[in-house]
Structure formats: structure tokens, C-alpha cells
């Protein structure tokens, strides 16, 4: 499937499903609009509902190159856009015995391209999906820079000038909501909240991702996970990622494995495990 064929909501949904990502209608609509309008799409949701996975599935589906920028505390221009290769610059200076002028020193061959610059400069014949992951981990200054980047798709490198995108990338941002993003950034983006899937959809997801899992195991795991999610007082609820690993674990262990033994796949907080065991939440699954 190519980008041009992503012309309807149904097509977007089919494209993602082709890569084992079963999107609900709302998500398919959001992706469809992000592609046809060329606006960035901000995905929020609990951990493990498959925010990052959307970008991977979309890029494979339309044959695009996936470029990922993982945000972290203290990320700045030199991590995200470009840096100069100082070690090589110093070596070049030494080798030339001082016979180098600044123009040669700040030439392309000393430029290190980081994800955002790479997205701008990539081959225009192939679409690019740019994933800006966990944007909430970056600080406000970086958010302000992104604001500019996402409206112009251009960056200025003082020594080289302004570099503009040869072809606009499809941009997906994800946030875990550890903090509210700035309104201005949100207003540049389309928005979608990814919820936990319904049990039916989750079962379909398990089958799509792990075709070798028998229906009985899928049913069991999905039932167990939905019971855990119904407990109002767990610190950390299992995501879709955990469901898939759980199904994998049960498959690998064979018939004698119990859900209780493998509870550590789904719950990662000691108190949660104790609480679930005490109440017998998983009894009879």
C-alpha cells in the first residue's frame, strides 16, 4: 500500500491491520486525517496501549522510512537536530597545521545529523514517518523549539543556513502525560486518546500479533487482564503489551502453567500482586 492509497478511514484501518495493528475507528480516523491534512498527530494514553506501535505499523504499511526521536530529560538541539563532529574537526585542524579556514571546518562532512535533520533531508521519493516519542519527558524549552519545527519544517544551522524539508514527514508525537504539554504545541497537533481495547478487540490483537496462540489461551489471558483492569485500586494496570507477553508466556510454558505463577508478567508492583492474590481475582480463569 502506498501513501496515496490511504484516502479513506477504512483504508487507514486496513493498512494498520495489515501490519498486525488493530485500530479502532477513532484511531483510524485520527491517522487518516494526520496523513491527508499533513498535520502532526499527538497520541496520549496509558502506558502499554500501543502508542509507539502506531508509528511502526503505519510506516511499514505505507512503505515509509521510520525516524524516531526518543525524548529524554535535558534533550536539546544537539541531541535532536544536529551536532558537529568536534573530534574530527580538531584532527583536521591538526592535520592542516593551521591552514584551515572556518568555512572548511564547518563543512557538511563534519556535520552529524540527528533524527529531526535526518527527517528533513531524507530522500523525497520515499515518505517519512517521524515519531517523536515521549515528548512529555523533554522540557519546556525543547517543546518551544518543536513548536517552530512543526510549523515550518525547517531548521537553521548558523554555519550552513536554513534547511527546509524536501517532503513533509508524517509526524506522530506520543505522551505519557507525566506533565501537561503546552497549549500552543497541542494546538498545532491533531489529538487522539488511545484507550484500553475492549476484550473482543484485545483478543483479536493477540491473534493478530501471535497467530500461533490457540483461542483458549487468548480467551484466558484477555479475561484475566480485563479482571485486573476492573480492580479499581491497583497502582499499575497491565497494558496491551503485557497481554501479548502473557499469552506468549503461557504458550511457552504449555498446559501446566497457571495464571497465578506468571502474574509477574502483568503486574509489576509488589502490593498489586499481593492484593490480587489475596482477593482471588484470577480464580476460575
Amino acid at each position, binding site marked *: 500500500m502506498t501513501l496515496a492509497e490511504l484516502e479513506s*478511514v477504512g483504508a487507514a484501518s486496513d493498512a494498520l491491520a495489515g501490519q498486525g495493528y488493530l485500530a479502532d475507528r477513532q484511531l483510524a480516523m485520527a491517522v487518516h*486525517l494526520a496523513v*491527508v491534512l499533513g498535520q502532526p498527530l*499527538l497520541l496520549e494514553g496509558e502506558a502499554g496501549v500501543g502508542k509507539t506501535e502506531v508509528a511502526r505499523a503505519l510506516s511499514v504499511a505505507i512503505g515509509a522510512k521510520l525516524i524516531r526521536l526518543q525524548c529524554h530529560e535535558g534533550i536539546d538541539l544537539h541531541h535532536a537536530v544536529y551536532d558537529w563532529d*568536534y573530534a574530527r574537526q580538531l584532527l583536521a585542524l591538526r592535520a592542516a597545521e593551521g591552514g584551515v579556514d572556518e568555512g572548511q571546518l564547518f563543512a557538511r562532512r563534519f556535520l552529524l545529523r540527528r533524527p529531526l535533520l535526518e527527517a528533513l533531508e531524507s530522500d523525497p521519493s520515499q515518505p517519512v514517518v517521524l515519531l517523536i516519542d515521549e515528548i512529555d519527558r523533554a*522540557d519546556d524549552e525543547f517543546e518551544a523549539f518543536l513548536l517552530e519545527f512543526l510549523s515550518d519544517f525547517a531548521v537553521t544551522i548558523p554555519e550552513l543556513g536554513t534547511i527546509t524539508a524536501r517532503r513533509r514527514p508524517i509526524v506522530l508525537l506520543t505522551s505519557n502525560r507525566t506533565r501537561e504539554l503546552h497549549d500552543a504545541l497541542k*494546538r498545532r497537533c491533531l489529538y487522539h486518546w488511545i484507550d484500553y481495547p475492549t476484550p473482543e478487540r484485545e483478543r483479536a490483537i493477540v491473534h493478530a500479533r501471535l497467530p500461533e496462540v490457540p483461542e483458549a489461551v487468548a480467551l484466558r489471558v484477555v479475561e484475566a487482564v480485563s479482571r485486573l483492569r476492573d480492580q479499581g485500586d491497583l*497502582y499499575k494496570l497491565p497494558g496491551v503489551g503485557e497481554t501479548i507477553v502473557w499469552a506468549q508466556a503461557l504458550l511457552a510454558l504449555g498446559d501446566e502453567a497457571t495464571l497465578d505463577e506468571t502474574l509477574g508478567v502483568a503486574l509489576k508492583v509488589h502490593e498489586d500482586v499481593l492484593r490480587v492474590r489475596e482477593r482471588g481475582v484470577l480464580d476460575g480463569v
Partner: protein
Amino acid sequence: MSEPLAPLAEGMVGRLGDLTSVLRAQGTRVGVGELLTAVRCLDRVDCTVRDEVRLALRTVLCSQHVDLERFDLAFRAVFGDGQVPGAEPSLSDLGVIEKAVLPSLAMPDPARPAAPDDAEMLPAAWSDVELLLEKDFARYTEAEMVLARDLIARLARRHPTRLSRRTRPSRRRGHIPDLRQTVHASLRTAGEPLHRRWRSPTQRPRQLVLVCDVSGSMAPYARMLLQYMHACVAARRRVEAFAFGTRLTRITQELAGRDHDRALDRAAAVVTDFSGGTRIGAAIAELNRVHGRRVGRGSVVVILSDGWDRGEPEQLDVEMARLRRAAYRVVWLNPLAAHPDYQPLARGMQAAVPHTDRLLPGNSLASLEQLAAILEEI
């Protein structure tokens, strides 16, 4: 994005306008930019299918989780089955008690001098503030509350910091070499890196989480403590504010904004359990679960409560232990602790004290000053 807008049916644009005005009335921020995007996206979806239009507009016009529910309401009102939501939002049927607790306006006593607002203070005004420092919040008059505002705003600007992973050029020889500047400097010395340059980490504000008890027993103090919380939220970023009685309410967004009285009014409108009972354990449990990500690692949590708890002490014990493991420091401000003979005998306090790093009185400006000093040093 300069492609011309497709001609859209005249009526549709009008109804989009209606939709945005309903959304705005409910507090969702919708600008002209979003409206234009909405028109463009209607061009790309099948406008004859109601649900298609709804999903498309929802994606474009909402920008946060709370907007989604508002949108569905607004959409039904404008496009829907003729069901118009009640003109009054459900907030109006909250009682009058919470409104009575907070002053909407404090009139300064004409007999007293107005609050000093410039650097050159008269000796008389000085002593007024001085006297206020030790005075118990419960005995404040309305005029004194106004007088204390400046000082509270100043205290709120003192905040905890932490080292950032961002760096800045530094004069002193540090442990992070600044290669960029070293290369630049070496150009002066014919490519010989004679002058090495260094960078050092910067300081960032540490996340501060303020949790205020607004139950009946705290009523005399809640007004002033909420004032302090508002000042903190207004003064800088990375502050989260919560209020609780029997349940926890996030009031960060309500407290934002410079206008003091309106901020407190907005907060009073969303907190439904003013001057009611207290279930601290349940409130902390909700903080840990629903807002766990906002509290996050490395934050300083300040709990403002007298510890009179009608919930289960076991729950409070477990939840405070969890909170302390997740947060960087937990500070408890208890107005009762100001009394020299105070012993943490209330059941809630007994359960909570082992899990707090500091227990401070929280009954006067002097104690808030003490808090500010501690926040700066941790």
C-alpha cells in the same frame, strides 16, 4: 498550508461556528486555526455520515482528554438529536457551603493602612507585617489576609531545585568539556586547542506537589493555605495542586492565573467536599493511582492537613509508604503542630508520621517561611 478552502455549504460553516462557541463556553480552547482545520477536514470525509463527521471534528477540535467528553456534549447540542444539554452546567447544583468558605473579595479595613506594594515601606507597615508573621491563620481578619498576600507571593517564589541534564558554559574548570567552544577557541590559536572550555549542569525547578486538606477541621486554615497554593501555581511551572476532604480533586488548572479571587472561586467550584469529613488515606490512594505520573519521581510532596482522619489508618499507612517511595521528599504541614506540647496522637498522624521526611507547623506566615527555607535546601 495555503491551499484554498473548498466551498462548504453555507449552513455547515454556521453550525461549525455554533459548535465552537458551545465548546468555548464549556472551557475548551478553540481558535481560528482549529476552525480552519475543521473546515478542511470536513472536505476530506464523508459529510453525509454523522459519525464520520463527529470523529473527524473530535480529532481536530479536542486537544486534551477532558475535552473529549465536552465535545460529545457540544456535538449533540449542535448537530444531534435535538437534545440540548441543560443551559446550566452541573456545577451549579453544588451547595453554597463551599462558596461561603472562601472569600470572593476581602475589603481592607479603612482604619488600617493598605497593603504596601512598593519597596519603600513605612515603619508602621513593616511592623504590621512583622506582627502577622507569628499570628495564627485562624485568627486572621479579612484585612490581614489581604495584607499577607504580598509576603505569601514572595514566599511562593522560593522553590526546590534539582540539577538538570542540560548544561551551560562555565568559567570554572568542570568535568564536562565544551568541545564546541574549544574548537571555536582553537581557531584563534591556529588550530591548537590551547584554551579548553567547560560546561556545568544547570539548576531546574523540582516538581512540587501541594495537597491541601479542606475538611471541616481545617476550615480556619484552608483559606490561607489555598492562598499559598495559588501563589505557588501562579509563580512558576512544575507545580501541581490538589485539595481533598473525602475525595481528591486536582485544582492546578483552576488555580492558574494571576487573579487571586477568581482562581479561588474556580477552585471552590470544583471541590465538592469543602468542610466535610476527611479520608486522608483514600485521598492519598487516589493521588498515587490516578495522578501517580504527575507526582512522579523526584518531586517534593507537601501535605497540608491536621491529620484528623475518619478513614482507615491502615490504608493511610500503606499509601503514605508508597508515596514516599515514589516521591523525592514528603513534607507534612500540620497547623496543630504549632502548639509546643503537640504530639501526633490523631490516628491519621500516627500512621503518617513514620513516612514523612519533615513535620512542620503550618499555622502562620512564619511557618510558611520555614517551609520555603526547607524547600530551597532539599
